């Protein structure tokens, strides 16, 4: 089949609207968790900070603006049905959508070319937008996640390969160390994403994928789910509070994803999402109807 320019155009218009909406509106699960946390945080600076956060979300919505000035490096995580009819058109459409959204939202210019060290001025750069691909068999849908990787919330990111004797406690130590240092500056309350695998790059990637899972969801493995709860409780007992000014809680949650490891390695990766966790997910059908499942009831 020949290249379908019209399909590329329809896809890029849809995805551009999807990006613009995501830049100004946090997903339903994040908004719900933040208001639950605000209820609990009734001492010190916390209530005032939650008030400003709430006002910010309302004003971003009313004025149709990006809710945070750091609109991040644009990242896509695509789960592509092998029967989706426009496979060739997806990548050009995504790149074009970022270009359009950069002007329309508007998004801050955040793509700085490495080595040549200049800002490209339109959020398009070498391998940016970053696109992660997964194939889904027997599906004709394109499931697309978009994530704005801000500077402050990317800074705590890390991956490291532990020796098995350091155990899962070694993972706890690395995560808790990072969250009480870099994490304080990452606009808490954060969602914490942890990947566990056999090598650093797999663990790192899984830690970012963990952030795409809804706040409050749990790993299917009961031991992993328990570890998510234990980490969340442990981090909350430190009381970073909103903005890191202290409070009763620290994090929106802890999500863990895993891949089988090598007998001789225990690799861990950490990614954090700030309270302005701009993740958006959409499922697109071959006729371009869609389900914007992270932001229910929104028409693009």
């Amino acid at each position: 089949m020949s290249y379908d320019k019209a399909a590329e155009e329809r896809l890029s218009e849809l995805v551009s609207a999807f990006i613009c909406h995501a830049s100004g509106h946090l997903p339903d699960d994040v908004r719900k968790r933040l208001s639950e946390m605000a209820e609990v945080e009734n001492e010190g600076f916390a209530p005032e900070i939650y008030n400003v956060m709430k006002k910010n979300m309302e004003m971003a919505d009313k004025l149709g603006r990006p809710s945070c000035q750091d609109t991040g490096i644009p990242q896509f995580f695509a789960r592509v049905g092998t029967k989706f009819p426009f496979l060739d058109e997806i990548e050009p459409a995504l790149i074009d959508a970022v270009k359009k959204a950069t002007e329309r939202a508007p998004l801050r210019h955040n793509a700085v070319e490495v080595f040549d060290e200049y800002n490209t001025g339109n959020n398009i750069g070498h391998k940016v937008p970053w696109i992660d691909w997964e194939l889904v068999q027997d599906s004709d849908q394109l499931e697309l996640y978009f994530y704005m990787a801000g500077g402050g919330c990317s800074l705590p990111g890390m991956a490291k390969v532990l020796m098995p004797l350091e155990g899962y406690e070694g993972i706890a130590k690395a995560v808790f160390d990072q969250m009480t240092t870099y994490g304080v500056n990452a606009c808490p309350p954060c969602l914490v994403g942890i990947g566990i695998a056999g090598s650093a790059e797999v663990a790192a990637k899984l830690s970012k994928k963990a952030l795409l899972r809804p706040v409050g969801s749990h790993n299917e493995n009961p031991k992993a789910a328990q570890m998510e709860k234990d980490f969340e409780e442990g981090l909350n007992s430190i009381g970073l509070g909103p903005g890191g000014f202290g409070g009763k809680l620290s994090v929106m949650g802890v999500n863990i994803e895993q891949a089988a490891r090598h007998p001789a390695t225990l690799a861990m990766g950490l990614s954090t999402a700030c309270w302005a966790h701009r993740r958006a997910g959409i499922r697109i059908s071959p006729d371009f109807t869609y389900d914007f499942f992270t932001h229910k009831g929104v028409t693009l």
Partner: protein
Amino acid sequence: MSTFYFTTPVSDEDIRKVHIGDVIYLTGDITTGRDDVHIRVVNGGKDSPVDLKGKAIFHAGPIMKKISAEGEPDKYKVISVGPTTSMRMEKAEAEFLKATGTKIIIGKGGMGPKTTQGCVDNCAIHTIFPGGCAVVAAEECVDVEGVEWLDLGMPEAMWKLKAENFGPLIVSIDSYGNNLIENNKVEFQSKKEAALEGLKGKLDFMH
């Protein structure tokens, strides 16, 4: 914890009234400047093109929009402006205060011992605007007076903003050498040790 309403230029006397944990709402001149501005002034030895005496420097890389028509003098509007991580400026901030006479630093997260000493030496303070609240901050900036060093790019340039009751600005370093965030960090560290202790025995999946 007290609340202050200040207008720029801010005097030493005003700065002396303020202690860590106090909250300020600031009216007047706020200029953005982050990594590159600090590098130019401190490492490059260039004079700041904006008079910052008694005024505020804002660690922020905003989204600005040109609202003037073709042929008219440039006029901009703030779309979104919020604090960036102040610690990135730690190396240069003390010298920046000395070189420019800036009285109030606005940013996100704490700053270190060099800046704390710089605040003591130059009778200045560091304050924190809640991170990620960039639309609120943008709406508190009622006018854009101009821009300098635009060659650095939109986020890095010095945007001269006119603010009205800009805040809440939580004072994190005062002119007496107190540092709120450093104090918090000590507390977080000790609670962290207790939290890790509490996880012992819960993570023994290998045996």
